């Protein structure tokens, strides 16, 4: 990790210590420069005349006013090379798997943005086999999208499944506040799939200091840029859990006495999250970075500042919820959205894809209205009854996350269910497609 060079000036006089920061007199220091405070990694967050304020990632417990401070003369970096593959690292990019240090080129993390005119339009479908995703919320390379899930949903399991099924050259896992159990789950899952050689992990667990998490996305994405922009590879980045990342942002801004905005989050939350998510891109030379993240919700509240700002940044969101009628976890078709699906559906997939998708969701919505009627004790019409029967099949055969079939099969299932429960004019699909695919009378 961060090693000191010979003849570096050592400071030993801290004038102020707070829970997350310390301040000392020093000169010639660059903004965002890294330092070591009694060996603990720290970063410059404020310079006022000759007073430099450092954010100490592991916290300031036990730091005294005569702590040794060494400035490293550079922002946080990661060494990149092919040998990152298959390895596990801490938030600082140090190996945590007992393997050797990485030999590679040093890169500043959180580097510059891609020039928008150099981006290419994402156009390659990512097939996951899950119809709730592929049929209704199709993913595309270069996209950024989170799972919105309550903490009790199996989001990490779905994330791992999606990652393994997606045909990616590299999978980079950024774990923030990951429970040790979930960390081991990912490790086993990837090992058992025989995919370890294309996986790189940057892990901050619940056992590590929370502020360290702030480095994880930038580490993961700088590595991703190396493979995608320089090696032209298809890189999938998994970030879990971004809510815990945002919480760490709040801790820091709070300690810096900034005025909090909604839900005690920093006023810059939108920009902070956007800087991470906007690293997703389709590069002109063919490589891509796709980000699939997890944002855990507090009692399903998507108006909370974290999911709200996320939703404004990402290209849709995938909502997991338990459908008690069929006893399965489903991808909620109403609140889920893939904004990039238009780029591939009906173009890279069969022509009837957009209309089958819309018809299915619309009929499912009708079923939800019928259900409300039923719950309110009203009589159901014959159409209501059919809608409800359709909803059960649709949930089980399309929305459930344990579905694993090709897109063509999903479309066929759609037509099959329409014909089973509805009359021709109730489906509301364009005539030319009805003539070609309609399976009923």
């Amino acid at each position, binding site marked *: 990790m961060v090693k000191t060079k010979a003849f570096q000036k050592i400071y030993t006089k801290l004038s102020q210590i707070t829970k997350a920061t310390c301040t000392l007199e020093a000169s*010639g*220091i*660059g*903004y*965002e420069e890294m330092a070591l405070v009694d060996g603990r990694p720290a970063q410059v967050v*404020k*310079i*006022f*005349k000759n007073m430099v304020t450092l954010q100490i990632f592991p916290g300031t417990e036990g730091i005294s006013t005569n702590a040794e401070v060494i400035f490293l003369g550079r*922002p946080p970096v990661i060494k990149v090379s092919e040998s990152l593959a298959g390895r596990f690292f801490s938030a600082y990019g140090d190996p945590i798997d007992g393997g050797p240090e990485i030999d590679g080129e040093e890169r500043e993390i959180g*580097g*510059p*943005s*891609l*020039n*928008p*005119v*150099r*981006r*290419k*339009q*994402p156009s390659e479908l990512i097939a996951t086999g899950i119809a709730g995703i592929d049929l209704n919320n199709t993913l595309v390379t*270069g996209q950024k999208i989170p799972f919105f899930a309550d903490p009790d949903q199996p989001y990490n399991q779905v994330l791992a499944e999606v990652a393994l099924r997606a045909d990616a050259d590299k999978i980079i896992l950024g774990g923030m506040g990951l429970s040790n159990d979930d960390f081991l789950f990912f490790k086993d899952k990837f090992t058992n799939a025989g995919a370890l050689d294309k996986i790189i992990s940057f892990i901050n667990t619940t056992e590590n200091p929370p502020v360290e998490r702030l480095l994880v996305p930038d580490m993961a994405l700088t590595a991703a840029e190396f493979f995608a*922009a320089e090696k032209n590879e298809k890189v999938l980045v998994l970030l879990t859990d971004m809510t815990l990342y945002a919480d760490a942002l709040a801790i820091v801004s709070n300690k810096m006495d*900034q*005025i*909090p*905005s*909604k839900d005690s989050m920093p*006023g*810059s939350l*939108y*920009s902070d999250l*956007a*800087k991470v998510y906007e690293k997703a891109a389709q590069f002109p030379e063919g490589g891509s970075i796709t980000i699939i993240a997890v944002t855990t919700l507090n009692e399903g509240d998507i*108006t909370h*500042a974290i999911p*709200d*700002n996320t*939703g*404004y*940044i990402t*290209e*849709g969101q995938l909502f997991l919820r338990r459908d008690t009628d069929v006893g399965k976890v489903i991808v909620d078709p*109403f609140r889920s*959205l893939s904004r990039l699906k*238009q780029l591939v559906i009906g173009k890279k997939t069969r022509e009837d894809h*957009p209309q089958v998708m*819309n018809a299915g969701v*619309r009929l499912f*919505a009708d079923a939800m209205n019928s259900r409300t*009627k039923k719950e*309110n004790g*009203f009589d159901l*019409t*014959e159409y209501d009854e059919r809608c409800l029967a359709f909803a059960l099949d649709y949930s089980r055969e399309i929305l459930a996350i344990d579905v694993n079939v090709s897109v063509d099969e999903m479309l066929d299932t759609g037509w099959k269910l329409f014909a089973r429960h509805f009359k021709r*004019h109730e489906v*509301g699909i*364009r*005539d030319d497609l009805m003539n070609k695919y309609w399976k009923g009378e």
Partner: protein
Amino acid sequence: MTKGKVTSIIANLITVEVDGTVGQNEICYILHNQVRLMSEVIKIIGKTAYIQVFESTRGIKIGSDVEFTGQMLELTLGPGLLSRNYDGLQNDLDKLTGNFLKRGEYAYPLDEKKKYDFKPLVSEGDMLQAADWLGEVKENWIDHKIMVPFKYEGKGKVKSIAAEGSYTINETVAVLEDENGQTTEVTMVQKWPVKVAVTQYRNKPRPGILLQTGVRAIDTFNPMTEGGTGFIPGPFGAGKTVLQHAIAKNADADLIIVTACGERANEVVEIFTEFPELEDPRTGRKLQERTTIVCNTSNMPVAAREASVYVGMTLAEYYRAMGLKVLLLADSTSRWAQALREMSNRLEELPGPDAFPMDLSAIIANFYARAGYVVLNNGSSGSVTFIGTVSPAGGNLKEPVTESTRKVARCFYALAQKRADAKRYPAIEPIDSYSKYLEYPEFDRFAEDNICKGWVAMVQKSKDFVRRGAEAYDQINILGDDAVPIDYHVQYWKSEVIDFIILQQDAFDDIDQNSPIKRQRYMLEKVLFICDSEFDFQDFEEVSSFFKKAINLLKQMNYSRFESDEFVNYEKELDAFLTEKKI
């Protein structure tokens, strides 16, 4: 010029100890490792200037040199602005090298080598003032007027004017002499500070001419006018960006300026990719030819976000002064407000509601006031129509940006989560949304002459049907399907016909996505005919199945080319079907 040294750094707010005079909003550069980082003065106390840096401040040290320019942020205006992709500071993004943006790399916004065919419009001895046209060049298909610089004070006599011929933008095309004998050389390029409105026109009458957008829920229901203002608030995913893009594609404007302010880069890429291919429905040329993009996406420096909307507005005003119909779109004005908030917090100013700056309302009002329909000094007219999106936190419209905008924008296109969830796109809420122009006598006169007799009354009537439908729907939901008279079901389904056929529109269907006003009028008449008819129903289930069939046929008409055989056949089928049930 004034110089200074950096004395403190917190994120992109830096203080500088200066050795001379500085002005508010003056541009300065921090010298850092051979690169010059552009910044703007935002506050001055004694010898200390507070500056916001338009770039990352990583690595900057105390004592770094700062050079002041004596200029505010100014745009470079001249032929060649069209079809370009600028960042929020008017750098030509296509000219920058490499895939990644490099700190301190700036690119001249125009082409200094290109020759334009200049045609003089004045003669020696003519008396001119700021913004008067003295010549024109072809830029794509428009006649780009070369104007007396907006900064020119008083009147000037044309001492010489270039002959017809080709010139580069920096060659002198005219020399003006004022009453004191002072001469000014005029080229095709001029500069103008972005935060100052261009007001060199005769007057600004009330707008009344429909600006067609091709979107039925706007043109028919809540029309926008040339020189009008409107805003589109809505939670994420409700369809703000898709709606703005649809407007950008189909609007009946001479040119369109799209400001992507603090939103997704991929959405701008969509424009970069599609607009060079798509046709401008008015001219048959490529859309890109009439479009300029100003983009400061969410990952680009926050301080330049604020600048980007002003850059867009100033470009729009420049073309308006040529007598053109300009449409300015900004997505999203909330990001600009957030940028103001971030800076205001760093400056430790007293915060207003939701920690936004106290003067947010005034800033927004000033900005919207720059739009408008104007009569130029030479009697021709031009307009800047402005439509901005607003991204309210949590989708709650009771927040400072939405509330401040509502006070100044004349059209309110509220996107509703419920409609978006039900895939009723565009998700413009039909009852809460409004266009004040519908009440303008100017608009009424325009509609009488150009759409049809009684148009506004027809629109109001269809709004009433929608309102009554919503009331009936509530009753049905409270009392149950068979506990209400059949009439309630009929009321409800009539409003559904309007909803499905007039309000909903498929932005991704080649035909449905753009509906000219002639077609809109035809469909509104058709739909109102159904709404005005009485039908014979036995029970409420018959009502819904009848109207569903009718809607299905009407939808097929919407998907067919207007007045094509297909269209006519569906209409015949519909008419026959209606006649069966009509009484």
